[in-house]
């Protein structure tokens, strides 16, 4: 076994053109975050009462169904993916010691990716969506996005291959996996699921796509971030490189095959559904390999979370990770499925993962990297406001109420009372969810003001607490 590679080496100075590319993706990601959150808040409001459902009711472009698709398009491909691009472009040269390959192409590619995303989002709002969950943008927008994604892949994976690095740090493993698997998966979903595979065969493959858009794009990218950022902010190596690699291989092998759990009890072949039960359950190991490594690395460093803002987001992200990823394997149990499937429980769970974990780790990354890219500091006080508003409003007003609403719906549906009654019973919980949307937007506003407008750029950077 090789000696554990670390990221403790002093970071090379960021060249201006390199910084420009990373900054572009960060700004783009935050713009998409605002748009995506606006969509989410609008949807949340719409479900608070029949009168609220009437609001803007004659505007086709702002209809619930279209905004629903626009919301996931914006946050998955706009916010998270742009954020991950920024992270990849920042971390890969630092982990390989090589300048980004095709960096000029990557610079031209960055705005093109936004064009593809705007095209897709616009088409969804104009009523040209396709019926594939989590990639509802129509084929022309998908084709454009696929091209820009592959160009990023060439830059990122190409840099890793050309660097001649022999034993990679775990973040690089995840980056390679995420890019390669997702390029194939995205193209598969937008060709085979969208135009070839009928009915139950299509659902099996849609399971592969939707599950792994999260499992093999968002999760590996998030893991790459935490494995990079944790040692860098703590200035000490990760506790166990070996364990991180075990976690990697189990994720890469088990995660994709569990995807049909999105269609339990559907006409998808029963043997495939049964296969998804143990494979999904075994993900608990993947999860706790990351969790153990986090806690073991944090040993003796906990005092830092009071003043180190990026570390705070990483830490609370891992708490959410523990929660959501402990729920996940249990969702694969059929008795649990009977109740929670189709309900708000799943919505709460998904937001805990994509918002509570991976978005928070992206917050950590941006708080950490933005001052290093721009020479601007940020206000500790405003960062605290952003954190506490986000943490409290998400947990208290969104995650917990929506989870309860989901359980209530699930048990309600076991009775034979009118379904309409279950929706009305959920409304009080949906009101707090809509309020949390407004508060999360407020938090995001503070975040934007803090990063971009508060402190002037100066030499000799000092970032509060780090």
């Amino acid at each position: 076994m090789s000696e554990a590679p670390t990221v403790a080496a002093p970071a090379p100075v960021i060249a201006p053109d390199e910084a420009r590319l990373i900054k572009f993706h960060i700004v783009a990601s935050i713009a998409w975050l605002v748009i995506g959150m606006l969509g989410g808040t609008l949807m949340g409001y719409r479900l608070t009462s029949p009168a609220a459902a009437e609001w803007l009711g004659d505007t086709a472009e702002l209809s619930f169904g279209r905004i629903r698709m626009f919301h996931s398009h914006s946050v998955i491909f706009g916010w998270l993916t742009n954020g991950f691009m920024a992270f990849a472009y920042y971390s890969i040269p630092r982990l390989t010691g090589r300048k980004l390959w095709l960096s000029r192409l990557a610079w031209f590619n960055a705005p093109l990716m936004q064009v593809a995303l705007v095209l897709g989002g616009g088409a969804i709002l104009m009523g040209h969506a396709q019926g594939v969950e989590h990639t509802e943008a129509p084929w022309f927008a998908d084709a454009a996005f696929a091209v820009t994604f592959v160009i990023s892949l060439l830059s990122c994976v190409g840099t890793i291959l050309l660097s001649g690095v022999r034993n990679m740090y775990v973040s690089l493993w995840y980056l390679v996996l995420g890019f390669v698997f997702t390029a194939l998966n995205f193209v598969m979903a937008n060709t085979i699921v969208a135009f070839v595979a009928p009915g139950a065969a299509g659902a099996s493959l849609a399971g592969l796509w939707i599950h792994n858009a999260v499992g093999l794009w968002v999760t590996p990218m998030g893991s790459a971030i935490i494995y990079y950022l944790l040692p860098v902010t703590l200035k000490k190596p990760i506790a166990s490189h070996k364990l991180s690699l075990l976690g990697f291989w189990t994720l890469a092998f088990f995660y994709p095959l569990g995807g049909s759990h999105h269609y339990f009890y559907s006409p998808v072949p029963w043997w495939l559904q049964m296969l998804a039960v143990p494979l999904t359950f075994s993900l608990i190991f993947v999860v706790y390999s990351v969790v153990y490594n986090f806690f073991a690395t944090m040993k003796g460093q906990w005092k830092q979370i009071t003043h180190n803002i990026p570390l705070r987001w990483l830490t609370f992200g891992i708490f959410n990770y523990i929660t959501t990823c402990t729920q996940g394997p249990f969702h694969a149990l059929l008795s649990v499925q009977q109740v929670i499937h189709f309900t708000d429980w799943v919505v709460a769970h998904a937001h805990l993962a994509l918002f509570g974990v991976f978005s928070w780790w992206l917050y950590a990354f941006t708080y950490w990297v933005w001052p290093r890219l721009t020479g601007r500091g940020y206000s500790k006080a405003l960062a605290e406001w952003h954190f506490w508003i986000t943490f409290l409003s998400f947990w208290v007003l969104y995650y917990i109420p929506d989870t309860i609403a989901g359980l209530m719906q699930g048990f309600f549906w076991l009775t034979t009372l009118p379904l309409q009654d279950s929706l009305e019973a959920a409304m009080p919980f949906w009101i707090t969810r809509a309020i949390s949307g407004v508060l999360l937007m407020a938090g995001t506003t503070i975040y934007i003001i803090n990063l971009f407008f508060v402190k002037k750029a100066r030499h000799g950077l000092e970032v509060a607490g780090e």
Partner: protein
Amino acid sequence: MSNDVKAERPMFVLLVAGLGFFVLSFVAMGVFPWLTIDRIQAPDSMQNPYKDEAGQPTAVARGRDVYIAEGCWHCHSQFVRPVANEEFRYGPRSQAWESMFDIPHLYGTRRIGPDLSREAGRRSDDWHLAHLWNPRATVPGSLMPKYTWLFEQKEGKWQPTEKATDLVAYLQYLGIHFKDDVRKQVWPSRVTVSGSPTPTPLSQQRGSDLFQHYCSGCHGESGNGQGLAMDFLKPSASDLTTRYLPREEVFRILFMGSEGSAMPSFAELTEKDLWAISQYVHGMGRSARKPALETATVAQRRDRGAELYRKNCQTCHGENGIVPPAMENLKPAPKHFRDRLYEPGYLAEVIRKGRPGSAMAGYSQFSDAELQDLVAYISSLFDQKLYPED
């Protein structure tokens, strides 16, 4: 210094984890299931619903496109699971062959509304159109968005565009192979109700609340039939203030619905709630009893009316005001005059003008006197012993 381990080289990770595991999962989750599904035999009745003989897209196909573009499938799933009482609620469990022409499939993963895979024949086209135009028109507590852009205003009235009628064609196609099973479940062919619980002030209040909640969209808040949905419904929603309906009769209609009209079955409500609504609706038209029965007191009138009834009405409405079983197949079914009374002026008007959307034609040839005779006879068919004054 670190040793070179092949498994830790970038190319190894790329080929095994990125490429290899993708191919593995594609084979396991795509190729194998696809092969097993292709061996499933669909019934002969399963034809491609999306293409006509000339290869052109059908109304069902165009409706499906609207369904996809509007993201309907994000709130309405399209598969019935064999668990959690879903078969009882929606209908028989979903089969793989049902969606064999669906590319992409629209199973869905969330329900903020009911599953739609057993929708064929469950509700009338009118109901769907009114519901799409404004969901609150048929379900006052609904959270569904309006789809007014699928409609246009003509001469002050809302009319569906082709997109709306296509969408309804698609909804009426969903689960068409199980239409009979669903029909038997949703529209029981016969319900006999005898005797009702004694009304209380509390059940009166509950009935009022439930009426506003479930009925006011079509029947109007005051029950006069002038609800939000009125532009779309044929036959129009009943004006409940013009008829004396015994509580048992209301209960029967609530439980059965009225197939062929937009009146759905409310059998999912608890029996207590159904009785509370029955009591409330009964109260709305209570004042019609006295004038209706008064018309029946003049023997001459009654006898002349009986003659007219035999010639013109009896085939459908039956002797003694009990609809013959064969005529129950008319949708909506003719009314049993044994079990209800109409306010005389209203009844005469309906006889003269008919009831558009039902088999009831207008009899404009009758003179006012003949109409009065007929009203007298029809009112006399009401069974006062079965339904004494309360």
